[in-house]
């Protein structure tokens, strides 16, 4: 499990380097950063966060609750960041609002900013004894 996480960590880091290289290449000819480079960075960021968790958790990541969180972070957060690239632009004051914000902004604030707090730290607390028993107990 840890080996897979390490491989994913390396892959995600290489994906980011490719995204940065694309930005450098575009800038050298006076063009804007290509959209696919941003999409690559978005996917790599989610993958990287989940991979770091996987490296630390090792075999304990097989617990279904933790596996679900890793999937949420890796695919959910990464997917949401990618989805932002496809959100229709704000056209004016008559656009529909979600919680007081246009769709893309609502996805940023509520979906990426707040929703993970209701899931990730809660699962951390729920699985704490399985994942990281305190050092006194270990002894």
């Amino acid at each position, binding site marked *: 499990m840890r080996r897979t996480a390490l491989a994913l*960590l390396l892959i995600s*880091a*290489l994906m980011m380097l490719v995204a940065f290289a694309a930005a450098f290449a575009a800038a050298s000819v006076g063009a804007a950063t290509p959209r696919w480079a941003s999409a690559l960075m978005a996917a790599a960021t989610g993958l990287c966060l989940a991979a770091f*968790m996987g*490296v630390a958790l090792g075999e304990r990541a097989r617990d279904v609750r933790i596996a679900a969180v890793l999937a949420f972070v890796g695919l959910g957060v990464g997917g949401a960041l990618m989805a932002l690239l496809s959100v229709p632009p704000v056209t004016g004051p008559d656009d529909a609002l979600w919680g007081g*914000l246009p769709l893309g*902004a609502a996805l940023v604030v509520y979906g990426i900013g707040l929703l*993970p707090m209701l899931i990730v*730290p809660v699962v951390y607390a729920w699985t704490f004894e399985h994942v990281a028993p305190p050092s006194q107990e270990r002894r």
Partner: protein
Amino acid sequence: MTEARGVIVGVGLLYFVAIAGIGLWATHRTRTVDDFYLAGRGAGGGIGLMALTLAALSATLSGFAFIGGPGLVYSVGLGALFIVLPASLTHALSGWVLAPQLRAMADTHRVVTIPEALGVRFASRAVRGGAATSLLIAVIGYMATNVLALGLAIDVLFGVGRTPAIWIGALVVLAYAAGGGIIAGIYTDVLQGLWTALASVLVFLRVLEVGQGLGTMSRTIAAADPEFLEPWGHLDPLAALSFFFVFSVGVLGQPHVLHKFYMLRDPRQLRWYPLLMSGALILGTLLFFGVGIAVKALVVDGSMAPLVSADDATPRFVLEQTPVWLAALVFSGVVAAIMSTMNSFVNVGAAALTHDLPQVLGRDPSTQLTPGRVATVAITLVAALVAQASSSLVAFLGIFGWGLFASTFVAPLAIGLNWPGASRAGALASIGVGLGGTLLLETAAWAGWLTLPQGVTVSALTLVLSIVVFLVASKLRPERARATPPRPPDDLTRPSARRRP
């Protein structure tokens, strides 16, 4: 206006008196080096969960959260939020990746500093020396930025002029940091954390009242500047995503926050740390989001004159749109946020100077309090002198502080403390790439020799490179026999291990 100024100065003075009281009490309690750097450390001494949370909150939220952040939202739109968006993820991340590992090392290896933990893990004085050197350079940069910000805030509060204000701020921090060490730091952080969170929440409620709700502000802004409300605002998407990456993964390399895990009295309390810390940080950053949006809406509808400088967003909002007592709370909150961050930095910097570097050079670390106090004074004075020298130099130093911590500490700590295959060669290579890459690229960018494309930052680039180099070098040069993983988490946490007598 004079009456308002009187109230603001009065609250500021009240705040300084409270800080001085805590400093005196902590100086009386500080008797050993462990007290000075680790608040007595772990079981038997140490701190509780609430103190840990508020201290970590205070160390994380600098003046940027109150001044620079809202200004950035005002100028670039919602893309600026990608700096604070990872808050709901990062503390579970550090809870899984580092907190139990570091807390266990405080018990088993009696480590005092983060570079020392790396030195133990990789059985290498070179790794420890490289980490301590990076830490000192970053601390001076961060401290200079924060001393300057504190000076500006004190000048706004008391009107004494910028240079005297810089020295007043430095001396106030010294008064409690040099005497009471981290005990003073932790308990002033508790006060400062509560103060900043309260100020942030109250200002956000005022934002909603003044702006007649988030929906009204959104419609006002959308009519004039729709791009402001798009997910990336006026930023290139790659820039916003780089913020998200650096400020999420970078949390795993911030020694002034991480070393507080050594101090937790009962490690079972770590269970609730991510939930509490995420909640506290979200409350603490409400002002960051709210003021940026509100000022933009007020400027668009003509209720407020356009800002001369984006950094005026918070001062203008609180002075023009909030009651005087709330303005006083916010200005003191800004001072509180800066002071608590400075204290955390100066303490880890002093520990590197008096504990890590002597041992790296083959000398015994001092068991006396005096060297720690002298180092605290020296670092603060150097930072104050740098803060006076050149504002562009200070801005440059502040920019690379976070990136230097991230690029030199994340890979050896987050991967190294968890992967038995991590090697000394990997740690040395990644620290070298992080330190050398950050200094070279930031200097080249500052001097105009290098133009980075939109969306690419030195901190993101060097952080990614250091991770790749760490993994590859560890594979190519395993050296497993030389490394001594402190307490491999798997062995410690398997159920079978717990059943052993």
